[in-house]
Every structure is written in structure tokens, then in C-alpha cells.
């Protein structure tokens, strides 16, 4: 399919130039890193940028490190790089799990986490670990940097808190000091790449603290505050899990779309929360789990 839209292309050699271009073009300029969403959107006529600003030459945006309990992920770090980095897997298992479920091998090798959160679709797998690990999104403009908590980032489907003259330079996650673990469960329609019909991320620690987030079940990916409040401080038990599952209708607001009915999303969320909590507990106890196999079918 050809690209009918005509646009300009720049590949600046320093961040300042990127920000100056962004400042002058505002929403007419799009940051181009992986391009896996952007190029498709241009082809389909969904966006009509005047300028693409390619940031792939900027080494500073390609930083990925873990320092003093903070995991820093630069704007041009790809999903494949995240998956292949051992300290990411150790520090943030849910992020590792979630990244592995995004799109396909080819797309993951180009697509970036930062670009992914800018698309802000309701089914955003990567949002659940960011929500549970209380991520901060670093947005820069010519004036300086604004740090936006992930809880304030998603405003509506495909709408974020970023401003016209800003770009995401990186994302920081807080890695807890105490012993904790996490898991991400995704339900798709078949064994290949798919957008989530439902996604649940579960974090827990040895002190029975819980953080739970979901995607594809509400207009924006969200934390499950009611369920967290119920669980916090309590040892997992059959009864407690049942009580948590019972809160799901109050916690999510799914729709019927081509991927799933609302009713199936409500039903299967109970199954996912239950299996996810048990899997997180297993992981906390040092057992090997394979999240992709927890929901049955081919994985």
C-alpha cells in the first residue's frame, strides 16, 4: 500500500534540535523512533504529519540502566532490547512478561516502549507494569523537563498528558527494595500476535502488599484500587481470591468490540485475576512459571 501523504523528514544529531523542531511544528511534527504505529497510521491516512523527526541517531535516548532502584528506559529502547536484558527481567518480571506479548518478533525489534505509551490504546500491555511500578514519564521541551507520573499519563483512549511541544525522552520505574515479584497475563484470540482481549498485571511482595493493573477492560489502562485495598495486608487464600474476583464488576468497565464481548471480558477477568494471583505467589516462592501457558490453548 502506497503512502499518499507527503511530509518532510529530519534526522537531528542532538536533542536540542529535536526539541526546537518540535517547538516550531507542534502537533504537525511526529517523533519517529520505531515507526511501527506511525508509518501504518500515515499509510491509512489517520495522521497527516508535516514533519517526521527521526530520533534514532541520538545515543542519549537509547539508554537502558538500573541505578539505585530506578530502572531507566530511554525513548528509543525497543521491546526486544528490554526482553533481552537480564536486569530488566530480574527487576521487573511483569515488564518482561508484558513486552514478550507485544506484537510479533519483527515489530518488537523496532517498536519502542516510549512510542507504545504515546499510542495510549486501551489494550496497552506495557501500561500494566508501568502502573504497578509507579513509572514516571520524562517529557522534554525547549524549556526543560516535565516528569509525569504514569497514573496521570493516560487521559482517554489514544490521549495522553503530553503537550504539543514536548517529546518523551525516557521512562523511569521504581524497583522496590523489599522482596517482591510480579506477573502479566494476557488473553488473545490465538497463538500469534494479538491485541489483548484482556490483560492483568499483578505485583506482590512478601509483606502481602499488592498492586494490580489491567488493560483492555476500561477506556484507559488502570490500577484496580478496590481490589488492592481488599487484598493489602492479607495472606492469599481461596476465600480472599473469590472476594477479590467478586469486586471485578466494580473495578472494570469493558466494552463489546470485535475482539471480545463485554460479558466474556467480565467473566475471563475473574479467571485471570485468580490465576494471576496464584502465579505471582508461586513466583514469589521461587517457582518457575510460564505466564503464556496459564490461560490454556496454544502458547
Amino acid at each position: 500500500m502506497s503512502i499518499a501523504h507527503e511530509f518532510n523528514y529530519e534526522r537531528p544529531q542532538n536533542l536540542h534540535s529535536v526539541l526546537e523542531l518540535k517547538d516550531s511544528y507542534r502537533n504537525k511534527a511526529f517523533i519517529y523512533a520505531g515507526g511501527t504505529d506511525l508509518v501504518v497510521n500515515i499509510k491509512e491516512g489517520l495522521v497527516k504529519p508535516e514533519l517526521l523527526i527521526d530520533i534514532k541517531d541520538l545515543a542519549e535516548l537509547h539508554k537502558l540502566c538500573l541505578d539505585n532502584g530506578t530502572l531507566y528506559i530511554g525513548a528509543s529502547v525497543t521491546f526486544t532490547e528490554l526482553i533481552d536484558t537480564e536486569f530488566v527481567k530480574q527487576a521487573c518480571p511483569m515488564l518482561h512478561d508484558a513486552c514478550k506479548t507485544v506484537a510479533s518478533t519483527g515489530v518488537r525489534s523496532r517498536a519502542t516502549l516510549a512510542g507504545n505509551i504515546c499510542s495510549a490504546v486501551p489494550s496497552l500491555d506495557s501500561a500494566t507494569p508501568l502502573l504497578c511500578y509507579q513509572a514516571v514519564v520524562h517529557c522534554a521541551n525547549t524549556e526543560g523537563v516535565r516528569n509525569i507520573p504514569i497514573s496521570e499519563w493516560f487521559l482517554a483512549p489514544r490521549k495522553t498528558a503530553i503537550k504539543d511541544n514536548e517529546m518523551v525522552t525516557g521512562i523511569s520505574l521504581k524497583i522496590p527494595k523489599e522482596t517482591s515479584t510480579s506477573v502479566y497475563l494476557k488473553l488473545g484470540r490465538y497463538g500469534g500476535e494479538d491485541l489483548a482481549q484482556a490483560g492483568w498485571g499483578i505485583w506482590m511482595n512478601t509483606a502481602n502488599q499488592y498492586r494490580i493493573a489491567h488493560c483492555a477492560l476500561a477506556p484507559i489502562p488502570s490500577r484496580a484500587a478496590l481490589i488492592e485495598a481488599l487484598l493489602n495486608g492479607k495472606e492469599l487464600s481461596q476465600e480472599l481470591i473469590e472476594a477479590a474476583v467478586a469486586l471485578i464488576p466494580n473495578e472494570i468497565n469493558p466494552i463489546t468490540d470485535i475482539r471480545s464481548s463485554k460479558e466474556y471480558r467480565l467473566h475471563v477477568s475473574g479467571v485471570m485475576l485468580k490465576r494471576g494471583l496464584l502465579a505471582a505467589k508461586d513466583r514469589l516462592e521461587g517457582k518457575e512459571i510460564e505466564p503464556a501457558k496459564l490461560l490454556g490453548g496454544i502458547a
Partner: protein
Amino acid sequence: MKEYTYIGKDVVRIDGLEKISGAAIYGDDIDFGANLLHAELVSSTEAHAIIKSIDISEALKVKGVYKIFTGKDFPYKFGLYMKDRFIFAQDKVRFVGEQIAAVVARNPGAAKRAAALIKVEYEPLPAVLDQMQALADGATLLHPDLENYPHVPWFFPKPGTNIAHWRKTRKGDMKGGFNEADFILEDTYTVPRYAHCAIETHVAIGKFDYSGRLTVWSSSQSPHTQRHLFAEALGLGHKDVRVIAPHVGGGFGGKAGVTMEIIPAALATKLKGYAVKLRYSREQEFINTYQRLGVVAKLKMGVTKEGRITALDHKIYWDAGAYVEYGANVVNAVGLSAIGPYRIDNISIDSVCVYTNLPPGGAYRGFGYSEMLFGLESHVTRVANELGIDQIEFRRKNAIKVGDTTAYGAKMNPNGLLECIDKVVKAIDWGNKPAPTNPNTVIGNGFSLFWKAPAMPPNASSSAFLKFNEDASINLIISGMDIGQGYQTVMAQIAAEILSVPPSKIRVETPDTDRNPYEWQTVASHITWSSGNAVKKAAIDAREQILSLVQRVFNLPLEELYLEDEAVKCTQDPSFNLPLKSFVVDGIMTKDGTFKGGPINARGMFMPEFSSANGDPETSQGGHPNVHYTVGAAALTLEIDKDTGKMRVLKTALAIDAGKALNPDLVRGQITGGMLQGLATVLYEDMRYDSKGKLLNPNFTDYKIPTAMDVPDEIIPIIVEVPQPDGPFGARGIGEHTMLPAAPMVANAVEDALGLRIKSMPITAEKVAMAYLASKKQ
């Protein structure tokens, strides 16, 4: 049995290196130089409407636009079996996505920009989006002038309705049959539409030169049929139309006949000297090529308590779309065969082709039999279970045998159906199920028989040219398409066997209708059988030329001469050994220095002269519309997560009677690929339309085709060989059949595991989970 040298051997594909090395040239790869123009279509946004006006004024201003064409430039009808289709919509549009106009520009971007600026004004008409609605009294007619449409003599349209064709098959005494029954089961099964999803989208390039000859390069399964339809629709002589078919990146029936290829062919005739390319986007591939037809099937089966089928009433209503020039033959084929591979004395089949305001239905691997078998093989399982008879025993008891009468009165061909059943039962360990891997899952086994005949006009034919080169290598010049099935390799094996030349010394190229002899189409799983017979005859012709030359020159008895190891040998004189390369082009020098013989050029042709479509319109009795059936059996073991509904095929076995597997490895490849394609249609594929007839999932984001991740844990391919008397070395086709049993056997396994009968496809995880949830609440 005769030991063959190349037949029945796992010969490596002769086109393999070309394809995996990237050397193979596909339609979009061909460079047409500076005179190439690009076409972009303007498509209907309405399912049914009168076109009031088309405003192209803004589009013409776009830089790079060369010309814009609409329906008034091409007031022609075309079609394979019924002429009901237009190159561009005329006064009306009949489905969302129908082509209304084309912009031709210097580059694809300009064409696309301009196409977006064309304004079409519509006067909407009521749309009929479902076949049952289209059959209701007072339904809007899609084709009010149906009575004037030319069609093949074996179609029976009902003017004044939306029925484009009604195939009726009647045999025996229905009333008596049902009276005799101890048990009768009646139910309805539904199957949605499906898309082929070949990885290479449709592409065709037309060029009309100043001498008045039209050349079309086309990704096609049917180069000769395309040439014929282009000539017919555009008023050109056949010798002046040339179709060149480069390699094809997948067909599955979607590139049979003519769909979009007629557009660049027609545009070219108005743009002398230019090449005009039309390449479909993935979205266009979904919305405006053939689709598999949707089905509502009403089944009524009577059985005795001993398990003999006494009567079958099978009514199948097909959602055939806005134009049925190809799809109506799907309806016809199934209407002759909707008894499945069973011996039934009392039969009533109504296979009804219904116009709807959805994209045209057409050929899709299986040609309607998958849709028919979903209902029939679900029903057979239920009937057996209700009677308390083992479903395998029930199938064995009623299985059709050689010499039994088919629904239309002809005799069933030799077949190994019972052997297929037995081998599948053994391979899958039927009756024993593995233990579930965890407490959330249950295991079910499902079984299904299948059959299918090639659906062809009675005079569909194949032909072959064969020429020897100086080194005794061969160019085999044939016109079938290798669409992944291994056609070129198998044809080379046939020639190799007859001529004792290894397949690696035989070149088979993709066809060019100017140089290659006639082939009807690469469809219907008939190409191994039909083209194979033509190739065999051509090879025999070459052998006869060779041996008679040797006889003439050396004065040896013809019956003592034979070919072996690329040489002519003599049974009575072991020292006689004349290498083919010494004479197949240059001839044989005699004592006086003169040469005898010359280049060996051979030809072969095959037409099934016993076939006839002359059945009675009210009963279908009397003709011989199908040349033979290929039969088989399959089973699977399915693990189901009760709570999520997710399914996993732990093991599946499929046995097919190939007559003779000319290349067993390629047969096993078809079984694996067909099984995967069939499982996808039942587990997750599904075309979904909104209430205005717009396709909601024209993309791989929401129309899922299987990946490597979706392959069953274990696939057991089983080849049975009961020879087809008129097949090359006993072979018959197997390509389409391998996907036929997938859907019913999944439905049967779900019932076996959960006690739930699902009667509509697809059987998604969601459908299973919600049905199980509802059953728990009851």
C-alpha cells in the same frame, strides 16, 4: 506392483531453490520502465445504492494524474459461469467496496490522493445482508433483470427473486425413507464468510500496444481462463490477448477466474503504449476479491435403530454476494454432493445460491464442501450418539463404497474410505484420551469423514508440450500454476518416470498463454489428475518418437526397446545403449553420413470425455457431473480450558486416499497446511460485517490467520492408495481436501469434552467459555 524410479518418491521441489533464494519473480517485481502507470480504485461506501453522480473535477487537478475512468467507459458484463458482473459499477453499486472508478497516475501516491478527491453521490437502496432475509417475500431485488443474464446450461436462476441458481438433487422416496426411520434429527448449522489471505495480494499489469495486442501479467491460478474472459469482455481476438503468469504468492482459490485483473486489462485498452498496474492493498484484498460463501444449512436425517441412514433432507442456503459468476458453481458442486461420503437411498438436496449485498463469493479451497461438512459431520455424530451407536461404527456402516450410487445416480469410484477410518482410529488411539494436564482443562476427541470431487465443466481440459534439449534435459511446457502445492515438481516426476530423465533435468516454468498450451484452471484439486494425464501423454508421445526413430535407424524390434537411465536400451541386446543426449536434438547419424530424426517435440492432451452436466434440472439424475471423489477421515484430540475456553490440539491424524501419492512428502505437506488452515477457520477466523454491510476486520489485526505458534502439537499424515483407474499412475487430487474435516471434528471434540454442541462457526474460545458458563448456571 511395478517399482517406479521417480513416482512415489520424495523428490525435492524443483522450484525450491528459486523461491527460497529470492530469484523467483512475482508480478510486482517486474520492471516496466518509464511508461508504467499506476491505478487506484474508488470504491463504494454503500451496500446498495443508485449512483447519482461522480465528480472527478478535483481529482483531475492532482499533479501526476493521467486519466480517470468510470463505468461509462466500460459498459461490459463478464463472468465465468454467469455474466452478472461489471468491470466498473454501472448505474448501481451492490456491495461496500465495489469499484466505481479508477484513477491512473504516474505514481501510486498521486493516484491515491486523487482517488480520495472523487465525490460519488448515492441514492441508497434497501440492502439485503443475509441470505435468509434475501429469500423473504418482498426482499429488495439485487438483479431485477436476472432473466437476461447469460449462464451455463446447468444453472437454474429464478428471475424475480434473489435466487441466482437452485441445484435440486432428488433420489428415492423421502416419505418412505423417513417413515422407515426409528429416529429423526433435525437442526440448523451456520458458517460465516472467510477470506483466503494469500500473502501476495492480487496484482495485475495490463499493456495494450499500438498494434492492438493486449498483454496482462497477472498473479493468477487461471491464465487461460483469464485470457478467454478478457477477450470476451473486451471484444478482442484470443490470439491478440496474452496472459503471462509469473510466480504466485498463494492462491487458495482466490486467484481463480477473474476478479480485479480485468480492471488493468480494461484500463490498458484505453491507454495505448502504457503499462497499467493495479496492486491491491491488504484491505482491498479483504473487501473486493472473492470470499468464501456463508452458509445456513438445515439438515434432517432419518436412521433405523441399527444405525442405517434411511433418508437425508439437506437444504443449504448460500450467501453468495452481489455477483455470483463464480460462486454459483460452489453452490452447484455441493448441491450434487451434500450426502457426504455415505450410501443413502432417499435423498433430497436443495442448494440455493442467494444474492446478497456483500462482496462476491467465489472459489475457496474446499469449494463449499467445508461449509457443507460442518453441518453434516456434526449431525452424523449427534445421530450416532443419540442412537447409542459408536460414531465410528455408524460411519463404517454407512460409508460409501465403490459401485454404490452417488446422489445424482452415477457410480462411486474405487476408494479406501474404510481403510482411512481404520488408520485414523489407530493413529489417534480413538477411545483412549490422555489425562488433562491440569484441573482447569478437559479433553475431547472429535472425528470426521470428508469427500470432495473436482467441480469443473464437463469439458475442462489440460494439455502439455515437451521438448528435448541437446543434453537430454527437458523443457516441460504446461499451464497449471504452482501455488505452493508442488505442481511443477510432480509434473516433472511424471515426465521423468516415462522418459527415464531425472526431475532435476526437467525445467518447468510458469505459463505464458502465447507459448504454453491450454489449461482450464489450477483449481478443484484436478491438476495432478488432469494435467498429470496430459503430461504423461506428452511424455509417451516423446518416447514413441524416440523409440520409433531408433527402430527405424537400427532396425530393432520396437517391443524390445525401452528407456532407462537417459538412454535407449534393448531387452534382447544388453550391449545396445544409445544415450538420449546423443540424438534427441541432433538426430542419429547413419553410415552414409546422413542424419535421421531431429528435435524431439511432443504433446499431450486430456479431457474427461465421460463427464456430462446433462442431469435432470428437477432431480440432477442422468448426468455424470463429477469425474470422481477423493475421500478420507480425520480425528483430533483437543484440550479445552473450561474457564477461558482456550483450545489446544494435542494430536490430529488425517488419512486421505490419494490413489497414488506421486510425491508423498508433498502430500504430507498438504495435509499439514490444510489442517492448519481448516483449524483456523473453526477456531478464530471470521469475517464480520456491520449492519450497513461494511467489513469490520479487513486487516490482520482483527482477522487472524494461523502462525507457526498455532500448529498442533502433533500432526499425523496418513496416505492411503486405492488407485484411480483413470489417474496418472493411479493418482487423484488431495490439495483442498486436507482442510475439510477440521471444523466438524473440533465441534465434535468440544461436545465430547464438555457436552456442549456448538452449531455455528467459528468455535472461538469465547463461544466455548460462555456456553460452558451458561451450562453451569442451568
